[in-house]
């Protein structure tokens, strides 16, 4: 009889193992839940739509005369500011992951998730996966405003592909940084600190002006800021043709940024896992 009990226990263990959900199905279901939250929590969704719209209109409107500066790379301000606004929108989307995570931690949902037999990597990865989906929205909004406002797109569809690639990179980096900080602080209020980090990186780059036209201390910082190269990658098709020399530094910056912040987020995640 004792053998039977042991055997039964083994069989039950096998069954549990057999029924453990696959990592992709966890990612998929958590992504679906995030989509639902997107609809159910307008306070979190509205900034994602409004901010790229506002950034594009405000930057292009307020600084439209910058194209008159000798040496400015384009005579169409929307072509310069549009991609900057799209990347800012993508950064906002990435930050949304940290707000959502903070909400789940404070509400106790995350604890319940950690008690489930789901793989830890899927739980953490679902946030980033959803961000990649969501990033399409600010990019589409900027392209739409650009099309209405008369944005030049010399590289055509390739310009949009490069913009999306850059936006995915920024969103993933912002999300991983935000998740790391939120795992550490365990509160929604971590969002404030996360925002500061992202926006400092954005503004210390070639967002509004090319490095050659900057003066003072900023060009020295912008030259070494990885965000400058991601911006170049995303913007190149709107001010000229897509070229490998403008693409690879951006790809390397994204790869390094994602790797660095993924390690940071994972280490912070391990602090909250029981």
């Amino acid at each position: 009889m004792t053998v039977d009990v042991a055997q039964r226990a083994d069989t039950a263990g096998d069954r549990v193992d057999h029924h453990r959900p696959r990592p992709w199905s966890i990612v998929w279901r958590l992504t679906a839940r995030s989509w639902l939250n997107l609809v159910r929590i307008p306070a979190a969704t509205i900034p994602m739509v409004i901010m790229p719209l506002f950034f594009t209109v405000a930057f292009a409107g307020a600084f439209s005369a910058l194209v008159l500066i000798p040496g400015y790379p384009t005579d169409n301000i929307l072509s310069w500011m549009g991609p900057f606004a799209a990347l800012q929108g993508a950064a906002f989307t990435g930050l949304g992951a940290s707000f959502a995570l903070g909400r789940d931690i404070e509400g106790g949902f995350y604890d319940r998730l950690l008690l489930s037999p789901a793989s830890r990597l899927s739980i953490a990865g679902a946030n980033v996966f959803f961000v990649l989906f969501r990033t399409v929205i600010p990019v589409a909004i900027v392209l739409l405003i650009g099309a209405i406002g008369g944005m030049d797109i010399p590289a055509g569809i390739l310009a949009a592909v490069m913009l999306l690639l850059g936006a995915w990179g920024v969103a993933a980096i912002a999300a991983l940084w935000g998740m790391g900080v939120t795992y550490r602080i365990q509160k929604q209020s971590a969002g404030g600190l996360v925002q500061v980090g992202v926006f400092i990186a954005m503004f210390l780059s070639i967002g509004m002006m090319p490095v050659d036209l900057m003066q003072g201390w900023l060009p020295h910082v912008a030259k070494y800021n990885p965000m400058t190269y991601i911006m170049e990658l995303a913007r190149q098709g709107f001010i000229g043709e897509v070229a490998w020399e403008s693409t690879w530094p951006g790809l390397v910056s994204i790869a390094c940024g994602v790797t660095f912040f993924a390690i940071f987020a994972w280490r912070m995640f391990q602090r909250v896992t029981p």
Partner: protein
Amino acid sequence: MSVDDSLETSAEHVHTATPPLLVQTAALSTRAIRGFFRQPQLWIPGIVFPLLLAAVNSSSLSRASLIPGFPPDTSYLQFLVVSVIVQGVMFGAIASGNELTTDIQNGFFERLLSAPVSRPAILFGRIAGGWVFAAFQALLFVGILWPFGGTVRGGIPGVAVLVVMAVFLATAIGGLAAGLGARTGEPEAVQGFFPLVFIFLFMSSAFFPTALMSGWYGTIAENNPLTWMIDGARYQVIVGFDLTEAAKALGISGVLALLGLWFATTQVRRRWRVAA
């Protein structure tokens, strides 16, 4: 002595013991200022963010001063001095006004209502806390930006105009924030109001001359009251002290302050009625 007599005497005693409105307002303002400065998360953004943006923008957009139509003999940093003050005051006044919401949430507001405190003092005490911070911010920003080229050509009278404008603007924004807080009782609602204010600021001459803006955006910016206020104050910085321009800056900010106070008063009165 009858019971009635003794009651009257004690009522008179209580009445004489209640300090005058000004003293109550001063006491509540002191509490508001102390409470504000004890929470660095409330006042640090109002100092750091505008200075950081000024440092970045003055380096990034310095060549904008070469564009024909940009105010002559003016560096971009000098052009930004007023917008740094306005941004800082907006950050600070929203945080300061939002403290009324915190008072409502933690029950201090209700306790004040049950105490023999003059009701206007409750509101003015809170808003007056914002005045001190706004004046401090204006002087601090002028002091920090001056050595880097953000000179105020209007000298002491010019600086005085900037300080008074900052105080009026703090009253306007602080009043709006306090009114919203009194209406909703939710700090998130007050925080959510900040992007709207920022959009209003962006669609003005705060960051670029309206003469260099084109199309409908330029039209909105030119007709934005904030543009009139900022241009009047900017005149003191980039040209020199001028009474007409000063009156424009102070007049617009004064009207905004009155509107802010009116909104805050009506909303706080409404809450008093609800509490009663």
